[in-house]
């Protein structure tokens, strides 16, 4: 069991958890993720590690409520526990001095890009950050990103905060205004990452995207997370999750991520029929797990 030490909503439906996971905290590097499972009937889902504190033995993750598992997770609080957390998985981000790096985070992607932005800044890069959200209330990690960025632009779809429009509008303008960019890191929804790749293709700007395909074991065993990169099947869990944006077939990624949509809707509908009983059963998971351990001894 992995106890939740802190839990706070950063925005409606987006929550940050600090979890006791000493082994993972000692090894985590930017760009890596964990896979977690909430209860004995639960699915395994991958989530990027936002930060870690090896001295406290903790990691933090930022979770957006999308399907059943994330809704269930976001109903947990400090004092609850997560049944299984495994990691850190995936290859760490490549960190060195590139020069000027533009970090693009769409929605909760801002939290995924954050640890890499920190490391890039520490490596001596000029970090230009662009984060976007649907509206002001959904903007996350503004303060944190401001600390590690030489410039930060916020965009909102409705113009309620920062620039009205999309993160790619700002990126397009930077390029049009002649900014020299050595690297773009884009993390967010698939259409956003695809749009970034389309924009940087012409000017030949190196661009890295962090992919989030459906994944099960996360150790290279099942091949469920395979993505088409440069015409070849690659496994996001061991070969990624970061890939050269120009080589990624986003259409295939989008199509594969939609594979279980109807099952996901069934799961969500079942959950919403009686959410409290399921939330309670996850909450009490720690007690029963302890009892079983005791029985074995």
């Amino acid at each position, binding site marked *: 069991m992995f106890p939740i030490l802190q839990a706070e909503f950063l925005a409606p439906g987006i929550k940050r958890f600090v979890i006791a996971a000493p082994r993972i905290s000692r*090894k985590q590097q930017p760009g890596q993720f964990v896979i977690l499972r909430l209860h004995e*009937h*639960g699915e395994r889902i991958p989530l990027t590690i936002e930060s870690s504190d090896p001295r406290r033995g903790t990691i933090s993750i930022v979770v957006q409520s999308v399907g*059943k598992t994330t809704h269930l997770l976001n109903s947990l609080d400090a004092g609850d526990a997560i049944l299984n957390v495994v990691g850190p998985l995936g290859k760490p981000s490549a960190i060195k001095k590139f020069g000027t790096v533009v970090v693009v985070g769409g929605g909760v992607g801002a939290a995924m890009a954050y640890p890499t932005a920190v490391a890039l800044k520490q490596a001596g890069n000029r970090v230009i950050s662009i984060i976007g959200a649907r509206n002001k209330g959904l903007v996350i990690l503004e303060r944190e990103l401001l600390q590690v960025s030489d410039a930060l632009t916020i965009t909102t779809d409705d113009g309620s905060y920062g620039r009205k429009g999309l993160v790619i509008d700002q990126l397009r303008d930077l390029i049009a205004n002649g900014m020299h960019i050595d690297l773009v890191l884009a993390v967010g929804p698939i259409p956003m990452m695809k749009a970034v790749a389309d924009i940087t293709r012409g000017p030949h700007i190196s661009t890295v995207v962090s992919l989030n395909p459906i994944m*099960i074991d996360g150790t290279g065993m099942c*091949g469920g997370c395979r993505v088409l990169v440069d015409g070849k099947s690659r496994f996001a869990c061991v070969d990624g999750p970061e890939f050269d944006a120009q080589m990624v077939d986003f259409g295939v990624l989008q199509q594969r991520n939609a594979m279980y949509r109807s099952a996901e809707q*069934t799961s969500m509908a079942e959950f919403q029929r009686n959410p409290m009983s399921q939330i309670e059963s996850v909450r009490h998971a720690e007690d029963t797990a302890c009892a079983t351990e005791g029985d*074995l001894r």
Partner: protein
Amino acid sequence: MSAPVKSQNPLTLKERVKLPRQHMPEQMAELRVLNFGEVNLGYSAELAQMEARRCLECAKHTCMDHCPVGVKVRDFVRLIVAGDFTGAATVIREDNVLPAVTGRVCPQEDHCEAGCVLHRRGESLGIGYLERFVADYELRMGTYHATKAVPTGMKVAIVGSGPSGLSAAGDLVQRGHKVHVFEALHELGGVLVYGIPEFRLPKHIIRQQIDYMRAMGVEFEADVVVGRTITIDEMIEEEGYDAVFVATGAGLPLFMNIPGEHLNGVYSANEFLTRINLMHAYEFPKYDQPIVDLRGKDVAVIGGGNTALDAIRSARRLGARKAYVIYRRSEAEMPGRAEEVKHARQEGIEFQLLTSPVEFLSDEKGGLRAARCVRMELGEPDASGRRRPVPIPGSEFELPLSVAVLAIGTSANPVVQSTTPGLQIDKRGYIAADSVTQRTSQKGVFAGGDIVTGSATVILAMGAGRRAAKSIHEYLVTGNW
């Protein structure tokens, strides 16, 4: 070690030879395709004793010589004849910590039963069935009592809780070493849990066998990916392990590199089986992890091994209308166990032999619609000694399919090797280890099972685990490398 066992068989050798092999009772095919319950139901005590009396009790026990872990077959069979089933279990346990597992999934026809003298005269003794009976008796009656060895003060880390790791753990803990097993997944058992379906090896059997190992003193830690969560070097330098046994198993699933492999509905067998076995997708939505709805769909598995058969028989149970095995060679070359092929046929699985897909075809939504296949003929033998399949020009045809499962093998998982600089690997990426001592190029580190040999069987992995345990014990006692 147990004392020599005397024969109590009332039959003459002539009478024994005349007895037919006792059939394994099994769930009717028409019923079992509707559930995930076990196919083989196990011998009763009467059946087991009838079968055991067929043993010729040869002075030269070629059955035992053919067993990768060296189970004393003649001795345990004699104890079944004598009615001492608990004694029989004790004899098996001296060499095999997972008898309820191997009694179900070991390809006995290639090992002990191939060495059985009766085999030359007709049907070999049902050694696997007898082993299963004894192991199930022990589980049912709760007769197992763990004995703890005198502690040596030495600590051994085992990487992977599959058959090789468990086998080594059992031998090492019985020699008094402190044994800690690391597992990457949330459940213990490795391929026994994620790879082999419930209808061949029920999960509760694995759990009970692992509980026995806990009682012996073995410690288990799940959710640790060695190479990521902790490295081998850190285990030795920071956590004080005196030796490490790497048994991480088979690795990344191979794909065919033909067009259309990324279509929705094309799975690797590892993913397909992991969803079903480890994640219980067949109980969706009671369990959260889904699998595509196979009801009324046409499904094929590509490959002819046990994994392929497990996958297609699972698909049948999930409601597939047509269920095909597509294999590029003929039935004679199929690596799957004879019993599994027989069971698959009984369950209405169709075999498209001497056939191989060349392309997966898409429907308008990016889902699989059909496989374009080509017929093959067998040419000259290849490096494996099997006749090489050669495509027949102009024989291409379309097979309508909604789901295709690739079960064509695996390649080495690089996670441990790439994070352990001292480990030498072979040209295919597997860990280089001595085939007798299981020693690697790094002092104190041993390796065995599929991560050394590539995909093999449960019992061969267990054999490697036993050799490693023996060799680790010698190293710990003598300090010689």
